[in-house]
């Protein structure tokens, strides 16, 4: 019989090993899924994990990886603080949208002003948009004890409808033949977030993301804020005893993750997306949840997890075009990854024993 036996201290080996185990398990079961779909599993796995990095056309894909990884990492970093503290913001997608809409509207209001101040102002306003959107569930939780999971999620749908209202209304491109989309930021140099070095995919958002990884790393490992976040998540009563104000923690964690998601939205809008449309949100806010967990809520882990998930996104595009598989198959793949991660996680805090207990 198999039993779980608690470890006295969490296993450091397993903390590092479990994400790798999860990826391997996902490859195996994902492969089975492709067999089920009537495709060669080895081709599919190769296209997802290998081709984007080292395949024949990798020079093109590599840039795409950074473009997709940056928002995932930036959002996941924000979420990771809240997740550690037991504050569940799952509405990052909505904050991402609001950041893009508010920051984008700021820029569009200034169109066609030619000033270096426009883009930084848009970043600021985008972050504030996400921040405020994230503070709604925080306020409702602090003041009325409303569950932040449900509120933040509901606000995704509200934000999406707001976006639709904006691109069909006030923000619609006046020169755009009534299409439901905004002016393109590529035609607005002061507000454009261009690829800085051609072919690399690096835009301002990628650089800012790297900076935030480092700051988050310092905060979580060296600063009392990170310590309090961990404490609040592991032992809420002990955190209160230590003097951590739970309400402040809720506001900071939701506000921070909202601001980062909003900033990511703004970079995405002004760079890779180019303009506000109803198809602007592609689910980065949800995939970032997977990134956060896969990275073990640790900034460096999130960096790698974000890159990995970006690879699967690009790989997903490849299998979509080459094996004519639906786009959703990569979503299944990513969901599976989170499942397996949660499943093997048990090894960090428990040992598996087979057979009867040791007797003397």
């Amino acid at each position, binding site marked *: 019989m198999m039993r*779980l036996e*608690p470890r006295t201290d969490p296993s450091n080996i397993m903390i590092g090993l479990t994400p790798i185990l999860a990826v391997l398990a996902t490859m195996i079961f994902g492969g089975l899924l492709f067999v089920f*779909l009537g495709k060669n599993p080895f081709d599919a796995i190769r296209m997802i994990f290998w081709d984007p990095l080292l395949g024949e056309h990798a020079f093109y894909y590599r840039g795409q990886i950074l473009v997709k990884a940056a928002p995932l990492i930036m959002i996941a970093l924000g979420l990771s603080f809240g*997740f550690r503290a037991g504050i*569940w913001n*799952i509405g990052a997608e909505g904050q991402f949208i609001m950041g893009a809409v508010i920051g984008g509207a700021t820029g569009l209001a200034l169109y066609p002003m030619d000033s270096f101040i426009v883009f930084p102002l848009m970043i600021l306003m985008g972050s504030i948009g996400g921040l405020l959107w994230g503070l709604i569930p925080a306020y*409702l939780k602090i003041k*009325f*004890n*409303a*569950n932040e*999971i*449900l*509120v933040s*999620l*509901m*606000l*995704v*749908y*509200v934000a999406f*409808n*707001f976006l*639709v*209202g904006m691109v*069909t*209304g006030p923000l619609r491109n006046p020169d755009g033949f009534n299409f439901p989309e905004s002016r393109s930021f590529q035609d607005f140099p002061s507000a454009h977030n261009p690829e800085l070095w051609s072919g690399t995919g690096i835009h301002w958002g990628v650089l800012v993301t790297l900076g935030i990884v480092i700051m988050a790393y310092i905060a979580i490992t060296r600063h009392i804020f990170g310590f309090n976040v961990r404490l609040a998540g592991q032992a809420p009563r002990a955190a209160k005893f230590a003097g951590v104000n739970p309400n402040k923690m809720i506001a900071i964690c939701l506000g921070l993750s909202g601001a980062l998601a909003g900033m990511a939205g703004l970079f995405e809008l002004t760079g890779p997306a180019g303009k506000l449309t109803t198809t602007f949100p592609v689910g980065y806010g*949800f995939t970032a*949840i*997977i990134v956060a*967990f896969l990275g073990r809520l640790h900034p460096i882990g999130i960096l790698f997890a974000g890159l990995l998930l970006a690879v699967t996104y690009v790989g997903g595009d490849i299998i979509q075009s080459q094996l004519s598989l*639906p*786009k*959703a*198959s*990569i*979503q*299944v*793949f*990513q*969901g*599976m990854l*989170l*499942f397996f991660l*949660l*499943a093997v*996680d*048990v090894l960090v*805090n*428990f040992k598996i024993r087979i057979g009867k207990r040791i007797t003397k």
Partner: protein
Amino acid sequence: MDISVVSLIASLIVAATPILLAATGELIVEKSGVLNLGVEGMMIMGAICGFIAAVNSGSPFVGFCIAAISGAILSLLFAILTQYLLANQVASGLALTLFGLGLAALLGHSYSGIKPPSSPKFEWFGMSDISIIGPIIFNHDLMVYFSVFLVLIVWIFLKFTRAGLILRAVGENHDAAHALGYKVIRIRVLAIMFGGACAGLGGAYLSLIRVPQWTEGMTAGAGWIALAIVVFASWKPWRLILGAYLFGGVTILQLNLQANGFAIPVSYLSMAPYLVTIVVLVIMSADRTRASVNAPASLGKIFHASS
């Protein structure tokens, strides 16, 4: 404005039924002390599996059965993760939703634009001809009555049966229940699977009756709203009906306003159900003492019998 109150009420019942089904299942899950945030994922799996089964068999009944089974199977994954592998319930529920949404989209890839076999109205021996009451109460398909019947059963189960008492005890204090010799994990796994089956039925109701066709992401947050309605109901079965019908009313009202070319743009009207859900959640949670008395005390906590 041309909005008939009678048809409005009749259609709000239809709009509320998928959520009522899913919320009833989740109520049992939460009463056992487990928070399964994967309702959305299980609903959409029920929607597509039920749809596929109904289209291929030509029978909505088969569709609903398969939907319930598929919801239960998906929930079993959650049960294994949280009950045997002691994974965090919030994260596992999210995983279930993300996975379910993806898998459903994959399965339903070639099923968009098809019409499912229609479900007949339940025959009330001519009572549907009674004015006002007839169209409101006696002119629905069987699942509408089943969903209300299910609430009744759940109420009886929780209030009057020993099994229901044990379920509540497990949700209240799993350590004490374990000390008395109850199989906490087994009871919870069963509750989770019941919740999955109900969510699957709710999803199938969307794709087979309410819409009726398959579109990707068609649940559009219905699973999350079902979770909110459980809070709204303060974990009391009868109040689920009130919550679900209130939500159904808002949905139908805003759809009617849209159809009648009301002065507010469609996109803002579409926010209404979600905003109402938030408002309702706030109102019901504001009284902390009452909220904490009604909520199962072990909700969301991990159980491991260490000795």
